């Protein structure tokens, strides 16, 4: 009997499809429940954290428009991402006055000092080479901050547990780029991967309070953030006081605006007790003012 090539092809296709339906559920089991994992995550394993870190550094390089210490100047490399939000916000004149005591301007000065890593040229090769290199320390502004977003997205894809990636991206998306929906979605994506993160709750609270004017939700989010901070950081010898300062001061301001002066005083006293503010005197004055308001109330 002679079979036509068409029939053989049809037979092979049928066998292939039948095998696929049979093997697909088993193949799902081989991934041990990681079916939704990104291909890169499966391929790179824990090595993706190193790559994610590199992507985050690349975002920082873009934030500085290419002016950044090389691997040979690592002593000068920024150690955290605060300059990517605080310093830039202050530089652009966006920071509300009420937020001034939340930020340590000393850190901004330190960052400025560290980024002066070039120093005077040592010889003619260095001197001439600098005519081609980027040699001035600037931060992106006027909407150009969007250029760091691809690297942050990639960093989050590679390491979903890096909190700074979400907070920095959401900061620019909601403040200067006016993309509040995307900022919220990205923060929620981060929260899904890091349900215990108080930092993400702080930022989500800010988004609800400052962008949606939703004080009730902001209060819930900041209260949850405070609870998580106490659970995670309360017992540590060196807790994250900057975050505590953010939570308590913002929550106190919200309570004050709602007329809950006693609650606001209670929150500010938590901040004072933990020495969470770089400017405690300003907080003390705020507590005094709130006490006066409370006393005047009928």
């Amino acid at each position, binding site marked *: 009997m002679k079979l036509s090539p068409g029939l053989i092809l049809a037979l092979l296709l049928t066998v292939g499809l039948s095998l696929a339906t049979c093997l697909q559920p088993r193949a799902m089991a081989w991934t041990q429940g990681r079916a939704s994992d990104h291909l890169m995550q499966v391929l790179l394993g824990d090595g993706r954290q190193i790559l994610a870190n590199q992507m985050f550094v690349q975002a920082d390089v873009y934030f500085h428009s*290419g002016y950044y210490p090389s691997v040979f100047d690592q002593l000068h490399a920024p150690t955290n991402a605060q300059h990517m939000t605080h310093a830039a916000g202050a530089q652009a004149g966006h920071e509300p006055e009420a937020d001034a005591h939340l930020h340590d301007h000393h850190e901004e000065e330190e960052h400025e000092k560290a980024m002066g890593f070039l120093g005077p040229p040592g010889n003619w090769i260095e001197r*001439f080479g600098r005519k081609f290199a*980027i040699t001035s320390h600037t931060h992106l502004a006027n909407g150009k901050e969007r250029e760091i977003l691809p690297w942050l997205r990639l960093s989050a894809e590679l390491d979903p547990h890096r909190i700074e990636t979400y907070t920095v991206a959401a900061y620019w998306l909601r403040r200067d780029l006016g993309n509040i929906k995307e900022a919220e979605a990205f923060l929620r994506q981060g929260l899904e991967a890091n349900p215990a993160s108080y930092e993400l709750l702080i930022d989500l609270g800010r988004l609800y309070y400052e962008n949606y004017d939703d004080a009730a939700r902001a209060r819930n989010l900041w209260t949850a953030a405070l609870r998580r901070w106490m659970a995670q950081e309360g017992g540590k010898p060196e807790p994250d006081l900057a975050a505590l300062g953010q939570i308590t001061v913002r929550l106190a301001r919200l309570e004050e605006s709602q007329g809950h002066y006693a609650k606001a005083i209670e929150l500010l006293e938590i901040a004072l007790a933990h020495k969470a503010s770089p400017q405690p005197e300003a907080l003390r004055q705020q507590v005094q003012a709130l006490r006066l308001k409370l006393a005047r109330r009928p």
Partner: protein
Amino acid sequence: MNTIFCLAGIVVKELYRRKDFYVLFVITAVITLIMSTVSFFHQAGIVRYLKDLCLLLIWISSLVIAIVTTARQIPAERESRTIFPLLAKPVSRWQVVAGKFTGCWLACGLALAVFYLFFGAVCLAKEGHLALAQYLQAFWLQWAMLAVVISLALLGSVVFSAPSANATICFTVVVGILVVGAYLQKLAALQPPLTAWLLTLLYFAIPHLEWFYAVRERLIFDQDLIGWGDCALATAYAAAYAAVILCAAWLRFRRRPLTA
């Protein structure tokens, strides 16, 4: 001079007959175009990552074209024995070296021009404008830098036995200069005296190709123009190094037996 340009013409024709350039251009174009369709947070106007990627691919492609094309020139002539009728024309050995160099440099310039036209079109489409002067400076300085790379590969082709070994060594040297060239003195400061002295010597002896690579970053981050005087000085610097290396290649080639 005519002899040199005749030899150069053959090299240029060889480039467009071979598939290297087309393959690299298609890869660069496809990767860039695919990446340009990616949306990040539904945010319009994000373009620097694309310029970065496209220029990186252009740099890699141009280095591959320059080194691979140059590395096989003299060995191919020797292997196919066409070097004998060529030198019997009469064409002197320095003319062969100069002709091969000119041909490779012009061929790389043509390839680079096509790459930069594509890059310019991408920038224009995504940004809506093109910083033409910066763009021309970047093109010119990269082409000037390629003159040094081509002369290095030509020297390698008369020193090393196989084009593959030459290409590998050239890539290593060029990438090494681009990555650590500027920091050799800093590294020297951390070494014992003899190593420090050798590293310092190396620092002052090598052609500092990283200056030219830095122009790529200026283009990505929309920096101001480099002074035209500095551009001219950098061109003269590249020309001087290319001339010295070509002289070394000619000296080596002059005394080299043509039969294996």
